[in-house]
């Protein structure tokens, strides 16, 4: 017994030396409390009205799921209520369908006219399944054949975040930078438009937004010195209507007389040039690879902007506009209306591309048209979407890189102790580079008034390194090692009250929760875990009511829809990967903690829990 214990200790020690064990969590006293750094312009006034999305942005639920965000408000709320805390215990898998691709599957299945559409990670197959027939047989499969070399410019696995169905078309993007519209009946392309160039490092992973006769697309490449842009295409022809860059002179950013930012720091001429060293804006990132939202009520397009490049902030003194912030634009011509920068001069890879949820919400005694944004930098922002004013900003994850948001200037209060340095490792920075939350979208229930946030609890050590720009190659310049946040659970699902500005409940998960959430009319929240569990929680209490183990970890977006038989169905893709799952889906070695941009240091144990896969699962009650 004694001998074997000694041997075990020896094994553990040698594993530790090779970074194969997960580091110790950051102590809780390293981070700030919500009371210390949360700020609002006014005290909560819930009596002023009920929080809900407007009918223009969240029309009455037809039981379909035609866009990843469910509706323009991006609530990801399904009103179906056959599944309840009582009935969910009988939920069963109805069918599974192999996607034929064992990479990170981040897409939402789409349901329209009794057909389900799924787009996979590279090579971006699209499947159409007939829900009206037993076993949902394949109607067609489309293989767009993106150029294989595009895998070499995808920063964080070869993912795809989904497509949308509108007017008889399924519209999606490919890793090598195409937007393609397929005829939903035949699976044949109606048009395909090449938007990105892999030889300058561009790729596309985001889900296009289709609204108002236009298709809105943005590029990826923030780790390769790619200049970020957003494009609108004509929905019928695929022809370019407008293109707005997220760095550079005002004429490129489509900033003109209509531009009325709320805060002084965004006012001036050509700030997209002046807030950078000479010409650095040309290779400065600010990519739009996450969520855009079309506001059908205010006829406005909102989109975030990604991290500035390179990660080494010493090489780009200045605010680095218009990166790590959010634009409101005219969807017709792209003209900017306002901009707000979550993280000026980002030093920690805090992209601003997470979801915006459009709500009517009581604040300061009256109802406001707000967008709620859960940023990588760790704050829940409630922003007046008519003018870009921040009404409140509260931490929802571990934060010490800033000491709150100054609501007079809109700027985060920098914590100098966690500023990154050239050649010197700064330890225990929270949140980590992938954020208190990454792209994985939250949901909102009008029944509970709560947001359901899938998120991370991770921190990091960071050292800046000088980096050269070589076109088409990574432009990062940082040695990063991630670690668990306080408590050691690397992920959580938190129910957040945006009016009271505080959490109601939180479910701790061992791994970062990299799947989206969906909330239903039966007060259930569904989400998946990276170790392969698909779970249903009580939306009011956070109690786990049901779970099912699938073939591989889940990082996709679950949906809820009404089948041809009138019953409620739940669907999700398995297939672990993405940045956090690269240790399983990519040929990555756990002995290098700095691998996959420092993510491997905190995820080296994932291969013990799951393997690569890629499967569509559909669940229903027995009937």
């Amino acid at each position, binding site marked *: 017994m004694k001998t074997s214990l000694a041997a075990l200790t020896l094994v553990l020690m040698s594993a530790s*030396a090779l970074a194969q064990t997960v580091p110790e969590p950051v102590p809780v006293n390293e981070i700030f409390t919500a009371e210390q750094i949360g700020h609002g312009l006014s005290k909560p006034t819930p009596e002023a009205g009920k929080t809900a999305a407007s009918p223009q942005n969240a029309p009455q639920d037809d039981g379909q799921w035609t866009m990843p965000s469910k509706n323009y408000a991006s609530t990801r709320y399904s009103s179906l209520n056959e599944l309840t805390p009582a009935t969910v215990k009988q939920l069963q898998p109805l069918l599974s369908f192999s996607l034929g691709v064992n990479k990170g599957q981040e897409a939402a299945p789409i349901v329209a006219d009794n057909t389900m559409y799924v787009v996979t990670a590279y090579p971006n197959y699209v499947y159409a399944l007939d829900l009206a027939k037993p076993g949902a047989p394949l109607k067609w499969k489309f293989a767009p054949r993106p150029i294989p*070399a595009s895998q*070499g410019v995808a920063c964080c696995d070869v993912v795809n975040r989904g497509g949308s169905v509108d007017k008889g078309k399924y519209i999606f993007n490919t890793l090598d930078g195409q937007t393609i519209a397929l005829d939903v009946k035949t699976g044949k392309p109606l048009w395909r438009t090449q938007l990105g160039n892999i030889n300058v490092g561009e790729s596309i992973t985001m889900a296009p937004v289709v609204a108002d006769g236009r298709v809105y697309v943005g590029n990826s490449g923030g780790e390769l010195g790619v200049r970020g842009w957003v494009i609108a295409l004509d929905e019928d022809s695929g022809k370019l209507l407008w293109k707005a860059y997220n760095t550079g002179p005002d004429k490129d950013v489509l900033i003109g007389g209509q531009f009325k930012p709320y805060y002084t720091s965004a006012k001036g001429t050509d700030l997209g040039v002046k807030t950078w060293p000479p010409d650095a804006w040309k290779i400065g990132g600010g990519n739009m690879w996450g969520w855009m939202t079309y506001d059908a009520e205010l006829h406005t397009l909102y989109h975030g902007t990604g991290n500035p490049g390179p990660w080494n902030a010493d090489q780009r003194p200045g605010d680095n506009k218009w990166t790590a912030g959010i634009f409101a634009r005219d969807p017709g011509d792209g003209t900017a209306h306002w901009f707000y920068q979550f993280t000026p001069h980002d030093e920690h890879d805090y992209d601003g591309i997470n979801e915006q949820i459009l709500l009517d919400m009581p604040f300061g005694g009256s109802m406001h048209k707000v967008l709620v944004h859960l940023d990588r930098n760790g704050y829940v922002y409630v922003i007046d979407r008519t003018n870009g004013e921040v009404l409140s900003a509260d931490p929802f994850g571990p934060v010490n890189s800033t000491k709150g948001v100054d609501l007079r200037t809109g700027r985060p209060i920098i914590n100098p102790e966690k500023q990154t340095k050239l050649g010197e490792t700064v330890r225990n920075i929270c949140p980590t580079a992938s954020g208190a939350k990454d792209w994985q979208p939250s949901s909102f229930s009008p029944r509970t008034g709560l947001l359901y946030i899938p998120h991370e609890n991770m921190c990091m050590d960071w050292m800046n390194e000088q980096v*050269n720009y*070589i076109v088409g190659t990574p432009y990062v310049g940082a040695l990063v090692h991630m670690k668990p946040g306080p408590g050691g659970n690397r992920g959580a699902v938190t129910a957040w009250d945006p009016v009271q500005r505080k959490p109601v409940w939180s479910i701790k998960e061992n791994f970062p929760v990299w799947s989206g959430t969906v909330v239903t009319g039966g007060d259930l929240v569904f989400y998946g875990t990276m170790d392969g569990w698909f779970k249903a929680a009580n939306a009011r209490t956070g109690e786990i009511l049901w779970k099912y183990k699938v073939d591989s970890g889940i990082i996709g977006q679950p949906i809820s829809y009404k089948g041809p038989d009138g019953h409620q169905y739940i669907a999700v893709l398995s297939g672990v990967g993405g940045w956090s799952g690269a240790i399983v889906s*990519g*040929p990555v*070695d756990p*002995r290098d903690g700095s691998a996959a941009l420092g993510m491997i*240091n905190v995820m080296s144990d994932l291969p013990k829990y799951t393997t690569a896969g890629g499967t569509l699962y559909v669940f229903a009650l027995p009937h």
Partner: protein
Amino acid sequence: MSSRFLTNCMIAAALLSPLAGCGHAGHSGDAVAAAAQAGTEGVIDSALAPGLNHTAITTDPRAAAYYDNAEAVNEGKRLFAQYNCSGCHSNGGGGMGPSLMDSEWIYGGRLEQIHQSLVEGRPNGMPSWGGKIPDKQLWEISAYVRSLSLPQTLAAQNGPTPSQTPAPVPRSADQDTGWAPPPGTTNDYGATTLGPHE
């Protein structure tokens, strides 16, 4: 030095800050000539050699100078970071590109095979650097990459970042003749079962 090389080298230099060396004309000229010669036979990537009972290998005489050469691996390590190889392959563990510190080689792990991958690029995302980075530097990077999975280099790791002191590549590391049956098996392609006996 061909004019094409000069042009590409200038492009590379223009892209790099601080300026990377472009190698000496004599070296580059030799390299181009040798590459042309090696190109007639190519570098074998596959362990499948129809009709043979062992793996066929090619040896590139240019590789010889980079074995048992501490300066080459150290210089290769510096260049690996300078040319952003580390952006995809990290400190050997991979990320956007595959790990280089394990024993799996998609396109071959001999020094000349690694060099060939750098020169030609590979279809799933490895850029081609032939003519863009001086050939001597490509050999030095190859030597560093070959060193990453050496037991000596792995043993020198201390902490969550792989070894920063890569071991020189011993000539013996690439002297096996490629694929052979695993230890403990019998190399008897003519095996048949006799019996069962009464």
